[in-house]
């Protein structure tokens, strides 16, 4: 895998992670804004609930690649720890292959519902009439970034030792 490609994939992971950080802060701001609006000014907003729902989806899917890069996803390591090194490496490769395949499967089907929402002009049924393709987008984007990140991890694991 070329250095440029690797740089691009890591950049995608970082950008999606930064976006999810913004989503965390955005959620705090929106919910706090709603609290002030409702309890201080006695004037609840119509949109905060819907916005936070989009933000929570963003927080769930966009940081997946970055967390995977940092080894932050939870896994059961008990059996791996007692395996001989060769078997452990084999399991690591198999695990990453599974991550990549799963990511691209969800990415493809996620992209499908996103494209369908875009082409059909589907919007939320609320006053916001928010374009649903934007709401769905974190799913294919997050899984795409995760799949690509899996490839970055996978390539140095191959026996030919091409680690760049």
């Amino acid at each position, binding site marked *: 895998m070329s250095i440029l490609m690797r740089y691009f994939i890591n950049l995608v992971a970082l950008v999606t992670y930064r976006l999810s950080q913004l989503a965390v802060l955005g959620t*705090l701001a929106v919910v706090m804004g709603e609290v002030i609006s409702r*309890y201080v000014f006695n004037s609840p907003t119509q949109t905060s609930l819907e916005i936070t729902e989009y933000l929570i989806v963003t927080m769930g899917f966009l940081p997946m690649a970055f967390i995977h890069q940092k080894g932050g996803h939870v896994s059961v390591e008990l059996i791996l720890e007692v395996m001989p090194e060769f078997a452990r490496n084999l399991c690591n490769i198999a695990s990453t292959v599974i*991550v990549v395949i*799963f990511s691209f499967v969800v990415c493809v089907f996620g992209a499908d519902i996103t494209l369908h929402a875009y082409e059909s002009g589907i919007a939320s049924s609320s006053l916001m009439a928010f374009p649903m393709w934007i709401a769905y987008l974190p799913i294919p984007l997050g899984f795409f970034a995760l799949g690509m990140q899996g490839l970055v991890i996978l390539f140095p694991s191959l026996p030919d030792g091409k680690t760049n």
Partner: protein
Amino acid sequence: MDTITISILAIVFLLAMMAIGVPIFVALGVSSVIGIILLQGFEALSAVPGVMYDRMASFTLVAVPLFILMGEIIFVSGLGGDIYRAIRISLHKVRGSLAVASVVACAVFGAMCGVSLAGAATIGKFAIPEMLKAGYAKTVATGVIASAGSLALLIPPSVGLILYGLVAGESVGYLFIAGVIPGIIISLMMMSYILILGWLKPELMPAVDITELEQGKGDNPWIVTIPALLLVFAVLGSIYFGIATPSESAAIGCVGALLIAAYKRKLSWQTLKQVISDATRTTGMILAILASALVFGYLLTRLRVPQDLVAWIVEQGFDKYMVLVAIFLLLIVMGMFMDVVSVILIATPLLLPIIKNFNYDPIWFGIVMAIVTEMAVITPPVGLNLFVIQGISPGQTSLMTVARGSFPFFLILVLAVILFTIFPNLVLWLPFG
């Protein structure tokens, strides 16, 4: 292929993938994908992102990142140390005062932070070196903190209870309120055990010379804890009195924690960035498991696994207490190998229909499940609190030392589960009384 074979295959794939170290959220997702393909074909896979989106886009879930953020801010604010010091000074005449103070501090910290690791790490950082310096046995010093830190899983605002509420379709507010009395009772049971141990085996917990620990600190230790206590009342009070939803109270708690940290001059730009980064990572990790668990739950429902399981249990004519014991044992075993979030998200859709079938209250089950997951974090081989305490303990501390110290508290939690099973009103009185 019939649904039973597909169910077995999906569960076998799930276990096999987890065994080779596949991240749990991917293992759940892949076994769901395989199950859906076998049940309905490739075309049905569009249900995967569909279910993920529909079930994730929920205002209830907003409380998760906000309570995690609040916990991270409190973690860096130094409030944990203030609370521990105040309680320790107040209780210094009691035998085992440092250990008792640790339990109280962990319980109060748990009322501000929904993650058990943060409580154990924060209080343990101050309390373990002090206990060891005072001559406490290492097993006692480490075991107390590892176990009391797990109270955060039960005492609201617990992230585990939010996730249970979401999967079980129960009110998170009721779950939070229901967790208060069991949290207090278990804390009292832990303290009673420490006092009895101190009385029976004083050599394990020598008396503490408070002047040695408090040199040059003449101020009233409780004054600095007032903001922390106000924060607890603001968060839990607003939920209990129905003033705010858990998500709104989480936002209030975050802003309160930010103000306290800023006032205590613990909030540099660098710290703030670190806090947001840590909260995003923890949230992302939890939500990824949740997303896949929701799809797995969808598959189980399509396969009618929970319903078939209930029918089978009824057909066998098992006694309801026998079923309950089997469920608790299953949860404990799951907790020995999986993290708390995974246990709650995988077990709830499977076990809740059985619980409902035997007329147990789902709110009660949520609380009991939280107590069982408390056992999970102090049980080897995957007891996360054990690892954290081993990591922060000074000198060479083996995992087995911490585990041995935690074992009596494990038995206390077992006792608590029995108590709340015999007297479910101890759990249900506050929310429904």
